């Protein structure tokens, strides 16, 4: 393994320190290494909190900022943070209108979140939890679908609604509506190494790719021979459009998220083909983002996300944000 790290056990605190120091006007570390906004939200607004393992930078803590998250709880490498720190984050994000707790559907995160919700209720805290689960590789049952890059539009629209001063029920409804209307598929062509152990997290042949692979290299639908950008985009987009039951005339948000080692060059080539296919089908590409929002070390591959947008979701997507890794002016 060739990585610029110091002691493996210090990776998480050191990366969080670096993240906060690189944007001191926007975010700070507080309490037990929680990433919070440097200038807290005004009272009377809903707080927005998330949790997740580290090693996926800039996800998830890079999206703390005005218009998005209030507090992010980062766990160890690829491992969910425990309930005590999540509870601390929820207490911190209480500005008098309750907290929206956004959780990506992964076993460890959900377990921590459920325990946190029980503890928060016992304290009488006003919290609503929304689960993102949009990875169609998990099968038809929503419980089996993992939360991938779809966290990004959910943070964005729910965060914008909270910033506008909408009540908790409305923020929750917006997050759920965004969640219901998005679908993601991932493809991997090369493994990541676990930065603490130095071991590869999955095996894939030199000439192979795997569609449906999760954020931590959890296997998907099986390895297949490596295909061109166009062929890969066609296979994945067809599956996504079918699952979403997308119709001509609908407005879509498209995100192409690089896994860490796939170049922007490749992501643009893929996006170009996605654009052509949508055009041919009469589906409107309303908004798009191409880049790295959640990565897995030097894993190569990408996630393709599509989401059906309505006028309100589009307005909230366009609202300002100063989060270090998602600035909207």
């Amino acid at each position: 393994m060739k990585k610029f790290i110091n002691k493996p056990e210090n990776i998480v605190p050191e990366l969080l320190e670096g993240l906060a120091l690189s944007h001191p006007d926007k975010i700070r570390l507080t309490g037990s290494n929680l990433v919070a906004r440097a200038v807290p939200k005004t009272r009377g607004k809903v707080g927005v909190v998330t949790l997740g393992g580290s090693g996926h930078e800039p996800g998830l803590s890079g999206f703390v900022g005005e218009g998005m998250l209030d507090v992010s709880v980062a766990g160890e490498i690829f491992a969910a943070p425990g309930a005590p720190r999540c509870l601390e984050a929820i207490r911190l994000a209480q500005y008098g209108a309750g907290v929206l707790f956004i959780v990506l559907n992964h076993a460890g995160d959900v377990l921590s979140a459920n325990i946190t919700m029980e503890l928060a209720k016992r304290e009488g805290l006003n919290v609503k939890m929304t689960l993102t689960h949009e990875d169609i590789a998990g099968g038809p049952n929503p419980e089996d679908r993992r939360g991938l890059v779809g966290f990004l539009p959910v943070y964005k629209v729910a965060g914008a609604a909270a910033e506008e001063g909408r009540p908790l029920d409305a923020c929750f409804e917006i997050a759920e509506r965004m969640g219901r209307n998005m679908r993601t598929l991932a493809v991997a062509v090369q493994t990541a190494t676990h930065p603490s152990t130095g071991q590869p997290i999955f095996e894939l042949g030199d000439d192979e790719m795997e569609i449906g692979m999760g954020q931590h290299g959890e296997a998907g639908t099986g390895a297949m021979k490596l295909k061109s950008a166009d062929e890969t985009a066609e296979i994945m987009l067809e599956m996504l459009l079918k699952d979403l039951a997308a119709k001509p005339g609908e407005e879509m948000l498209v995100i192409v998220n690089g896994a860490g080692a796939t170049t922007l060059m490749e992501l643009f080539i893929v996006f170009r083909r996605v654009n052509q296919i949508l055009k041919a089908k009469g589906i409107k590409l309303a908004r798009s983002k191409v880049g790295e929002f959640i990565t897995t070390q030097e894993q190569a591959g990408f996630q393709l996300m599509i989401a059906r947008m309505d006028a309100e979701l589009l307005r909230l997507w366009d609202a300002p944000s100063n989060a270090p890794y998602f600035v909207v002016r």
Partner: protein
Amino acid sequence: MNGGITKDDFARMIGGAAASIRAQHALLSELDCAAGDGDHGGAMLRTVERLEKAFAPGGPEDLKTCLQEAGWSVLGADGGASSSLLGIFFGGMADAPACGAPAGASDLAAIFEAGLAAVRRQTKAQPGDKTMMDALVPAIAALRAAADAGKSVTEALHDAAGAAHSGAEATRNLTARYGRAKFLGEQTRGHLDPGAASTGLMFEGFYRGLGESKGESGNA
């Protein structure tokens, strides 16, 4: 061992579990590579370190408080699903009325059963799903059976360790239905589940930790 079970006895059990995990953490990470992210050993090291701290000399003297603190501390180990469930397990033990002044194997079984009940409130996983439950459930059933048969605490822990080990070994032939590994489905067959393996190691350590201090250790 006949008399009551003290906080110090529990501390010895925890110490034994920590020694077992420390000896085998690399193997646990290796097992985790087959279906997870390959760091279960690291997560378990953080977990046992926190358990030991909660039972360290100078801490609270009563078992209930120690278990509560241990549970809370393990929840905060940030080790994903395994440390959340183990935190719930140890914290849940504190809910057992027998915690007040545990007298023998039957009370020890009741304490472990309270921990298991708390875990079951958080996960729907059952034995057969290829998770830690494959080791935990038979271990606690064996503890109860030994207690009912009038065995000593050390003998009961010996039986529990054996059942946990067999349960963990049996996961080799199972298909994962919970956690990250479920996405691998049939591909998980042939691999030992790391959570079941670490639970097996902990129970072996509970037995050795207490058995050795009482000079009763045999082959677990």
